[in-house]
Structure formats: structure tokens, C-alpha cells
């Protein structure tokens, strides 16, 4: 069972009008790993997340999750099956408190409100957000909002968690807490795919990395292999390093 990938992205293409955001993408996500999805701005990383989570359908290709073809399933159905995601631009429920945001996610596993509330409290504890439980989500700082995105996704008890730039804009100490959170999530048996721009954060954390460029998979391998790949260096790292 563990040899079987938890998710197979097979030949996925997504067009927006004339723009090809994902083009013939093939990716396998292994059970229990932390996979880094990297690439320059506009490479199609968030698009791929949206496609995996079912926010919109692919133009071509399919998705196999735990051996099951999920290509035609709705986003909530995929969540029930165990796929959760965060949004690059946090989409908190701003008329609700932090704990209420998390409870929404809890209902997928707990039909009763009391059980969903307890699960949410435990998730908040896990994500170190308990002290903010009763704050309105609209009053959170940007780093806290990203943390809430993660907590809410965790409340759905996912098997596969897609994290889209959850460390962006964090101070080094906040980022360390974030890294620690991702590790603890993985230790719970959750497979993680994360999009991140800051190489110093992603590379030590992930087991493998996939590099997207212009909608295509450019390279794939261990962090060490990927950073040495000349194509990656020209397409992404070089540009990044120059910018830095």
C-alpha cells in the first residue's frame, strides 16, 4: 500500500483562454512525504493546487487519489475523501471567529456541533492558535491568517494537505514555528505538498521537490538534485538569487 502513490497527476493540462497554466503535468505524490512544489511566479503552482482540490476542472488529464479517479468529483467531495488545501491569498470567514472558522472544517468528520467544536479546539491547540480562538478572523495579523488557513484545513482530518505559500511574509522566528508545524503534521501521517518561494525554508524541509516552469514539470528529485539541475538554476534559482 505504501508503495502506491497517494496522488497521481496524469497528463494534466489547464488552459485559461489562450494561456496554458498547466501543460501535460505528471506528478506522483508519495504516501507520507513532504513534497515541495517550486517554480517562478506564474509557473502554474497554484493552478495545480486548484485542480487537485477540485476548485475547477482540468482541460485534459486526470487525478488518481488513493487509487480512485477523482477527476470528476466536486471540491467538497474531495475534501471528504481526505484532500485539504490552503489558499495563497488567505480566504478566512471574516464574519466568524477563529474557532468558528475551524469548526466549519470539522463538520466533514463530525456531524454534531459539540464534537466539531472539540475537534476544532484540539486543532487550534495543535496549531498554537488557542489564544486567538475567540477573536474575529478579520482581526488576525497576516501570519496568523495563514496559520488559521492551515488549522482549518487540518480540521477536515486530511490524508493529503496542500499548502500554498503558508510561510510567505513570516519573520524568521515565525517561519521556524511554521516549519515545526508542517513537520508535526507529517508526523501525524499526513502527506504534505507545499508551494514555497523561500528556498532556505523549503529545501531543508521537503523529502522531494518538483519544479514547475511555464506550466510544465521542469525537474523532479531530492532537494540536492534539484538545486544542482542547470535548467532549474536558469529558470528559477538564478533569477531568485539575483533578485535577492
Amino acid at each position, binding site marked *: 500500500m505504501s508503495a502506491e502513490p497517494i496522488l497521481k497527476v496524469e497528463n494534466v493540462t489547464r488552459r485559461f483562454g489562450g494561456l496554458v497554466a498547466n501543460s501535460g503535468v505528471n506528478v506522483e505524490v508519495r504516501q507520507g512525504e513532504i513534497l515541495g512544489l517550486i517554480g517562478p511566479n506564474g509557473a502554474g503552482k497554484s493552478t495545480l493546487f486548484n485542480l487537485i482540490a477540485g476548485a475547477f476542472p482540468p482541460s485534459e488529464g486526470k487525478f488518481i487519489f488513493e487509487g480512485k479517479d477523482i477527476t470528476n468529483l466536486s471540491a*467538497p467531495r474531495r475534501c471528504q475523501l481526505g484532500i485539504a488545501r490552503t*489558499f495563497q491569498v488567505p480566504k478566512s*470567514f471574516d464574519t466568524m471567529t477563529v474557532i*468558528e472558522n475551524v469548526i466549519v*472544517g470539522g463538520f466533514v468528520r463530525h456531524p454534531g456541533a459539540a464534537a*466539531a467544536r472539540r475537534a476544532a479546539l*484540539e486543532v487550534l491547540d495543535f496549531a498554537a492558535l488557542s489564544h486567538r480562538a*475567540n477573536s474575529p478572523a478579520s482581526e488576525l495579523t497576516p501570519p496568523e491568517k495563514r496559520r488559521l488557513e492551515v488549522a482549518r484545513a*487540518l480540521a477536515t482530518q486530511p490524508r493529503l494537505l496542500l499548502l500554498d505559500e503558508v510561510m510567505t511574509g513570516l519573520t524568521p522566528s515565525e517561519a521556524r514555528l511554521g516549519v515545526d508545524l508542517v513537520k508535526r503534521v507529517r508526523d501525524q501521517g499526513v502527506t504534505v505538498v507545499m508551494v514555497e518561494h523561500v528556498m532556505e525554508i523549503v529545501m531543508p524541509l521537503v523529502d522531494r521537490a518538483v519544479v514547475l516552469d511555464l506550466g510544465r514539470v521542469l525537474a523532479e528529485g531530492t532537494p540536492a538534485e534539484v538545486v544542482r539541475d542547470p535548467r532549474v538554476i536558469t529558470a528559477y534559482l538564478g533569477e531568485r538569487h539575483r533578485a535577492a
Partner: protein
Amino acid sequence: MTSAVLPNSVLANENAFASRRRNQLIIAGLIFAAVAALPRFVTDVYMQNVLILTLMFAALSQSWNILGGYCGQISLGHALYFGVGAYATTVLFVKYGVSPWFGMLAGGAMSAVLALALGWPCFRLKGHYFSIATIVIAEIGLLLVHNWDYLGGALGIQWPFGPDNWATLQFARDKIPYFYFALGLFIVTWLVTYFIEESRWGYWWRAVKDNPEAAASLGVTVFESKMAAAAISAFFTAIGGAFYAAFVAYIDPESVMAFRFSLLMALPAVLGGIGTLWGPAVGAAILIPITEITRSYAGGGGSGLDLIIYGTLIMVVALAKPEGILSIFRRSAKSENAS
């Protein structure tokens, strides 16, 4: 996230939450009891009438609030469901001698089914387009009833005079029983809201309102959530319509399906606090007496004066307190919790 020992913070939070919910119920019970005592002090028939209408619109707006406030689907066509309740009850009673109590439930069920049938296409529309569609559909309904002889057409239907009793909901001499019926209906809609608020639907509706895309990613079936809210909302709106038909004992298309009713159901919630437990009641307590008193001064219906007043009130609220009058109190409640 299965921890063998629950952290203290979890238990403390659960206890605090449970006592907050309990207090809400106790306060509501006290308010209901105080309102129930009002007829002892209000003996003027005209003022009793205003009280009855205020309670009725509080209940109607509470029902509207389920779809419009919690789920964020702003309907401006609820007069349609109000009319279905009024007509179903009236036709069943006047033409077939069916008890209004049964007619009321039948009207509620018909409205809920109608809401589902209309929701099927309409919930694919976003924001303003949804609201516009509801206005148009309600106007079409009004036109249909106008030209529907079986329903009395433009002339409407008169309830027969009978002895005062609860079985037929007829009280010609003393209006106080209507007061208690309206209060009962308001309490029922309040309780329904109170319990749904802390249930899966309640959370899912608010999530759908705030951000449907994020909601869907968390397992919320957005379309089904809207449909459920619409059906429950339409059901209780129709019960209100049935009550109104019995209360005025004569209905015609304009008197139960005019656009004015759609506004009068939406505005109290907007004014008092949209998507809150007490918003509709607070809004109705302010808006309905003003409406009724200006109507009696302006002489009968038909004048646009009350519409001008609603418009002005809404603009004032939108500019000064977009979350409604209740949000003024919410601030102070929160700082209490913090200390």
C-alpha cells in the same frame, strides 16, 4: 489530532461556550415573558394592532434572516412565499373547509418546495443577480395570482364570519389571541434560528456567505446549503402569511404579495443586524411601529411615504453601522469577555 488528555484550554473554552449559550436562552425566556405581559398594559386597539404586526414582521424577518442573513443570499422576493402561505390557507379553509392549522402547514410545505424549485436555477446566480431574480419571480407570481380566477383574481378572497375560536383562528371581537399567535410564531422562528446557529447547517451557511470557494474546499456542499436555507426560510415565511390571512380575514394579490412585503421582511434584519439572533426583532421593533404610524397619518396604503422612510433608514444604517444596530452592543460584550 487525537490527544489522550484534553488540554485545560479545551475544557475551559467548552464550558465558557456552554454557559454563554445557556445565558442566551435564559435572557430570551425573560424577554419573551416580558413581551407576553404587554397586552395587560396596552389596551388601545390600534396599538395592539401595531404590536401584533411588529411581532409578525419580527418572525418573518427572522425567517428571511436564515437565507439572507446567515446564508448571505439576499432575497427581495419573499412576498411570494408569504403569498403562498396566505393563499393556501385561505383557499383550503374558505373553499374546502380545511382547518387553517392544517392549511398553514400545507402552505409552508408548498413554499418550501417552491423555494427548492426556484433555488435550482437561481442559486447558480451570484450576488445582485440573485436578488434581482427574486424580485422578478415574485412579481411574476403576483401577476399570475392577479389573473387566476380560482384564487379570486384581483378581487381576492374574503374569509367567512364565524364565532371567535382557536380552531379556525378567527377572532373578530378581541385581537389579543392574534398577539399570542404572533408571539408564538416569533418564538418558534427564534428557537429554530438559535438551534440551527449551532449546527452544521448554521456554520455552513455562514461559511457560504463569507467565502463559498473556501467553504467548498472544507467540505461544505455550497449549493445544498443554500437550498436547505431557502426551504426552511420559505416554510416559516409561509406560516407568517397564513397567520396574516387569518388576521386580516381578507386577502387579495396586492395585500399579501406586494413588493412592499419583501422589503418589510428584509429590512428589519438589515436594520437590526443581518445574520444575528436578535437583529430581526430589534429591527422590527423600530421599523414596524414607524411604518404603521406614518401609514395612518398618510392615510391608507398606496403612498410612497413608508418606502421613503425605509430607504432613508437603510442609508443611515449602511453609512453609520453597516452591521446593524446590534453591533453597537456586540463591542461592549466582547470587551467584557476579554477581561
